[in-house]
């Protein structure tokens, strides 16, 4: 969805921000490095890093951005667990954009990839 939303606004971004590259996160996304680090420290459950990331994001972007970023991060802590605990496959696995993103980010190595790729292997 990052690529799709960037395309909708004709913004050039570097998707490697999702992989944790701070300079990539900065490309085309306001407060990208701060948002990336905040999300990362929450998901990694690294409390010292989270405290520092919260402070940095607050100072850079203000409380409104911090609270909304917390909401989105919390939302996706839920969504990944719904997907993996019910074993749902990706809906659009054959979509070229989906395939490109999987290749760019190396997603096929994730253990939960079997829920989608096993189906492809079975049906091909």
């Amino acid at each position, binding site marked *: 969805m990052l690529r799709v939303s960037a395309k*909708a606004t004709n913004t050039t971004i570097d998707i490697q921000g999702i992989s944790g590259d701070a300079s990539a996160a900065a490309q085309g996304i306001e407060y990208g490095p701060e948002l990336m680090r905040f*999300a990362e420290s929450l998901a990694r459950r690294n409390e010292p890093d989270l405290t520092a990331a919260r402070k940095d994001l607050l100072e850079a972007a203000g409380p409104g951005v911090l609270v909304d970023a917390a909401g989105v991060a919390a939302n996706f802590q839920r969504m990944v667990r719904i997907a993996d*605990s019910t074993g749902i496959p990706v809906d659009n696995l054959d979509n070229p954009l989906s395939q490109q993103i999987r290749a760019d980010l190396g997603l096929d190595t994730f253990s939960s990839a079997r829920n989608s790729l096993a189906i492809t292997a079975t049906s091909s």
Partner: protein
Amino acid sequence: MTFSYTNSAYPIREDITQAYQAFWHKLARPGAWWSGAQRIAIAAEVRNAVECQYCQVRKSALSPYTTPGKHKKGNLLSDTAVDAAHMIITDQGRITQAFIDKAALQGLSNEHYVELTGIVVAVFSIDEFNRALGIPVEPLPQPVAGAPSHYRPANLSTDTGFVPMVSVDGAVGNERGLWPTGRSANVVRALTLVPDALRDWFNLASAQYLSLEGMSNLVRDDNRSINRMQMELIAGRVSAINECFY
């Protein structure tokens, strides 16, 4: 009053507070397959899981299914239910069809598992919101007495994922409006064996992220301080760290 956030250093949007209060209200009451007390016990296991030493050991093991040990847990739920709740929080990427089938043989039916999953992920996301902002977690509510409804949707299919789900064209009758846009992705169908679990995640997602209708706005929601690209950077980074392929 729950979720008052009066001591928060940051103003919390009213729709977030209301969504959390509404979920806490439902959490305390009987669901489709669990009593109010059991639902609150499931919520408590979310908090036990994040501090569970056995879960940490198991997470680093080559296989989660051959590692002996005991969870940090309460005493109201079966060991199978506790194990499922902890696995969803700490090692969800290694949940398999075999894990769920074995749980069913041990008494955790698919219906119980799906409702449990809905509670676990909802409570976890609310707790994570607080943790993100350095706010202590909300005390769990007191249970309300009553019996579960045992409601099961009529139009289920077993062709997707590990558990039965409402079929793509099955959102009719009592399930009418489950996917208000008329289109249903697999993640929307995932918890529909217990339709209220989907309704709960819609309500929370509408406050924390975007409504299902709002997701079609790829630029910016007027009621948010961050644009869609900023949201998706956060979403992508959280999902990548959790190794979520979906």
